[in-house]
């Protein structure tokens, strides 16, 4: 082949090769756009469905704290005040606002208010006992059905039997709206209350705390064990068949479906050891088992990444093996290990199946204060709410998803920060 022919061939092939380049760039760009679009769509759906959950509807009532109705006196002790008949002043306030109601109508109107309204009237009184025998304008929480109607989440133009509120109730709601006695405010209940049968007073505080306690348990159990196991395997274990077998099985363990760990928790932790059901202690232990391989793999990778020359340097000045490992190798591997741990914890945070197996799916209406108290967890809470028929829970589940996503986002941000801040380049 002479020179000019070779040149021609190179030129013609060169065109094809640069076309290939272009095509590949285009494919990659399309793939990226596609995944971005899906992500944006997902976030948009969640946000558009969920943002209304951060608002609640409240109704203005004129409450007469009459001492005879309350069966209290201005001198009543705190304990007596606790037992005041606040439901009666609420009923009276409703009757005053809608005069001439029949008994059945009163029942219907009462359903426009949250079950929590009595408590709100009571709390206001307990905070300001001097209001006895006066009339006060008090905003109380509306029932979820009213809330959903005013947020436009439930339709009023369908036949009565397909609505939560019947025609009479609708007319009363309209009357309240007309007189400007209804407004939407920030829904503090969503962040301060635990789960409830009533959507308007259901919140994520209980499951959030449950998740925190669970993650705490996971961290306390898995982090030291994982570091111990990785340091042993990486630095001390003899390289033989048994070690190899263990190494392979750690990777296998990472691939075990999480529900299997749940079954293990149910069978061993609950039934054999008799640990308390539905608690963060058990949930955390199960998730710790699940997280362990992830952390071990991350920790071993970071231990491997520490250059052997550092260890040799320490050994050469007469450090024992343990000193060389714990003074020099482990501290250098720690940032990578922590990053892996946080990613493992993030996985654990989103895990639902094993928690269902050990009973963290129970309905827990109060906020847990310890590791051994029954509690829910965020992902299970979402599952519970998505399952609920009540329309009010739909926006709650979307909002809870937002909470868990923000939680995850923050954990990952910490991991990235740690990695950038402390990771060394060799």
């Amino acid at each position: 082949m002479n020179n000019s022919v070779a040149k021609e061939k190179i030129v013609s092939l060169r065109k094809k090769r640069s076309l290939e380049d272009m095509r590949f760039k285009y494919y990659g760009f399309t793939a990226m756009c596609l995944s971005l679009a899906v992500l944006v769509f997902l976030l948009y759906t969640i946000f558009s469905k969920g943002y209304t959950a951060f608002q609640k509807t409240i109704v203005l009532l004129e409450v007469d704290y009459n001492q005879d109705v309350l069966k209290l006196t201005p001198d009543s002790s705190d304990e007596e005040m606790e037992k005041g008949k606040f439901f009666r002043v609420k009923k009276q306030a409703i009757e005053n606002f809608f005069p001439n109601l029949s008994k059945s109508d009163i029942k219907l109107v009462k359903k426009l208010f949250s079950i929590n309204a009595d408590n709100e009237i009571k709390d206001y009184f307990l905070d300001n006992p001097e209001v006895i025998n006066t009339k006060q304008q008090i905003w109380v929480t509306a029932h979820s059905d009213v809330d959903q109607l005013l947020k436009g989440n439930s339709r009023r133009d369908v036949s009565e039997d397909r609505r939560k509120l019947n025609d009479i109730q609708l007319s009363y709601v309209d009357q309240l709206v007309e007189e400007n006695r209804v407004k939407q405010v920030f829904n503090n209940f969503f962040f301060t209350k635990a789960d409830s049968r009533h959507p308007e007073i259901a919140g994520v505080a209980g499951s959030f705390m449950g998740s925190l306690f669970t993650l705490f348990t996971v961290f306390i159990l898995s982090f030291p064990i994982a570091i111990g196991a990785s340091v042993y395997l990486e630095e001390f274990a003899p390289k033989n068949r048994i070690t190899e077998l263990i190494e392979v099985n750690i990777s296998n363990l990472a691939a075990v479906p999480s529900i299997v760990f749940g079954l293990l928790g149910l069978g061993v932790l609950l039934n054999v050891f008799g640990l308390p059901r539905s608690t963060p202690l058990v949930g955390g232990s199960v998730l710790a088992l699940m997280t362990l391989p992830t952390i071990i793999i991350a920790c071993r990778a970071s231990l491997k990444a520490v250059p052997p020359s550092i260890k040799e340097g320490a050994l050469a000045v007469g450090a024992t093996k343990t000193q060389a490992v714990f003074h020099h190798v482990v501290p250098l591997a720690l940032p990578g290990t922590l990053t892996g741990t946080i990613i493992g914890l993030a996985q654990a945070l989103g895990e639902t199946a094993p928690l269902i197996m050990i009973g963290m799916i129970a309905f827990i209406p109060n906020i847990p204060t310890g590791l051994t108290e029954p509690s829910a967890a965020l992902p299970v809470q979402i599952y519970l709410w998505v399952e609920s028929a009540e329309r009010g829970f739909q926006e709650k589940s979307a909002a809870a998803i937002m909470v868990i996503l923000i939680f995850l986002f923050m954990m990952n941000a910490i991991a990235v920060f740690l990695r950038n801040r402390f990771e060394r380049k060799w």
Partner: protein
Amino acid sequence: MSNSKILANSVDVYYGSKQALFGISMDIKEKEVTALIGPSGCGKSTFLRCINRMNDLIEICKVSGSIKVDNEEIISDKTDVVSLRSKIGMVFQKPNPFPKSIFDNVAYGPTIHGLVDSKNDLEEIVHSSLKKAGLFDEVKDRLNEPGTSLSGGQQQRLCIARAIAVNPEIILMDEPCSALDPIATAIIEELIDELRLNYTIIIVTHSMQQAARVSQKTCFFHLGELIETGETNKIFTNPDNTKTQDYITGRFG
């Protein structure tokens, strides 16, 4: 002249089934610089790492034969490797300061061996070690900066200071200048010349000029065998063995 410090007798080293050293016998005198030269893969680093049992780190490495340091056998399961290594310092091919401050780098050895009781003592050891390594004047104002922030030559001298700090009798140097520029190399070579007054030094080097400049004795290795050993002057001017002759005149290697 002086007494023998290290006495090796038919040392064999195997990596798995491959034999790397064949019956090495050697007599290393006190307070002298002995250079180990030879082409790559001839086993000179392997031999060096036998002396402070660094080969223990390599699991497939098996050492047999006898090496006596101060008449004490060190190729034995009973050898206390940790105290052996505090007696025999080592400087590696690539400077490997700990990713800690300059001060902590030097202080690490004395601290783990419990050589010091007070902070002042420690400071004194660190300062004197840095002075002996000829680094003190350059770093005295920044002892708290990380050791890795120093230049390559300074890092290597820091590693020498780190080795000196535990008060060894022997210093092993595994191609200490191969990663350094000529100026840093010259400084280290000068330093080696000074250190020879107090320490027995064994240096592995690829540079024959370096061996000629710094050493009193030279040992020539080839394919795992010790071909010739003798006064540096003699080896470089009038070697007995033709292989040595060929190597130092650049005919192979």
